């Protein structure tokens, strides 16, 4: 395995593939960011169908505007703004509908940072809440059960956001070792999470 590494933004790589005509690459971006976008929209809107609708519209708008994404900012930052603007447009349109109750709106504030952060997500049922909590518990328990070097590597990467180079410096090991430890940590945690994801989809992975 080559020890040479170069930081290549995976989002930018996928965007380039999409712009070049590979629509499947966009599916990977959707898979990566869908939950974050839906949670964001869910803090602005109560109706679960509308949350879904806005999230879908966000990804459609982003897909259509992808050729305009220059990589100056992070892809998620760009996507985030599209989501907020899309949600605001939907809400503005609905606000002028006299048949819609005020309870429909999560907040009257223009500033999305003040929207309902502590309230349940719009499309939650007790079952989905439990299923999601179970996954969160299993992930954290699996993290705690990791050998110390794997736990440290994946924590520095996923929670502290350090680059491989920085982690290598902190852990006093080669970058290749960092890469291997992070991978093994992910695999170990995934082994515990996968059965729960299978249960949710009703399909064996």
């Amino acid at each position: 395995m080559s020890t040479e590494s170069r930081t290549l933004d995976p989002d930018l790589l996928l965007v380039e593939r999409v712009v070049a005509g590979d629509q499947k690459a966009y599916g990977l971006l959707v898979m990566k960011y869908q939950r974050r976008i839906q949670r964001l929209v869910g803090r602005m809107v109560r109706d679960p169908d509308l949350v879904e609708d806005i999230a879908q519209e966000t990804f459609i708008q982003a897909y259509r505007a992808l050729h305009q994404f220059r990589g100056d900012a992070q892809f998620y930052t760009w996507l985030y703004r599209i989501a907020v603007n899309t949600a605001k447009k939907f809400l503005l349109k609905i606000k002028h509908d006299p048949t819609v109750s005020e309870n429909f709106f999560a907040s009257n504030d223009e500033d999305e940072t003040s929207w309902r952060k502590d309230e349940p997500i719009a499309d939650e049922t007790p079952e989905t809440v439990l299923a999601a909590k179970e996954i969160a518990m299993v992930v954290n328990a699996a993290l705690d059960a990791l050998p110390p070097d794997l736990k440290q590597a994946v924590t520095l990467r996923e929670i502290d956001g350090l680059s491989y180079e920085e982690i290598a410096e902190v852990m006093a090991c080669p970058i290749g070792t960092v890469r291997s430890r992070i991978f093994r940590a992910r695999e170990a945690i995934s082994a515990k999470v996968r059965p729960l994801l299978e249960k949710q989809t009703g399909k064996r992975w």
Partner: protein
Amino acid sequence: MTRFSISSESAEHISALSDGQLPQEQLAATLEALLAEPNAKQAWLTYHVVGDVLRSAELAPTPSDLDFLARFEQRWAQENGSGSVRTHGVGGFGDMGGAVDHGTGFGAQHSANAGVLRWRWVAAVACTVLAGVVGLGLSWDTPDARQASVAPAPENTQTLWVSSEEQGVMVRDARLDELLAAHRQQGGHSVLQMPAGFLRNATYDGAAR
């Protein structure tokens, strides 16, 4: 072999790719595998779920999350007028393929709800149009018009009837009259103390008063 039925080497490459740490020479092959193999996509998704959940429990996936891409593909296909989700000749957005079965479990449930969502929007639009009709006094084409003084209507517009009464020429609308009669039955003016001019006209009912 990993839990995802792909080689350890492939899985490690996907892990490194997700961190932007994959060497250039391994990039093309890893991307190809990722885009072509459902098991590779599972690994991609699961690694990102793990990372997201470590950062925030709120990002733990629900069943709906796991089926989002399939619904997105359906919507894309509908919006682009394609009968199939496979557009652009590259196989659509490439959901999990056989890995997530849309014919069972939560996949089928969300597919069944897609039509409900469409009808909710149709109903919302219809209500908005009706509110506009009542408020602005636009007329509907009904067979029992009292008088016809109809200017030639351009295509796709409503037809109005004009009646000459004591109070002057009034544009009447049979459907509006129906709605106003129902409104009076409910108790008449409930909101405004002093009806504005157009509302006075809207409540005009000639000989009935």
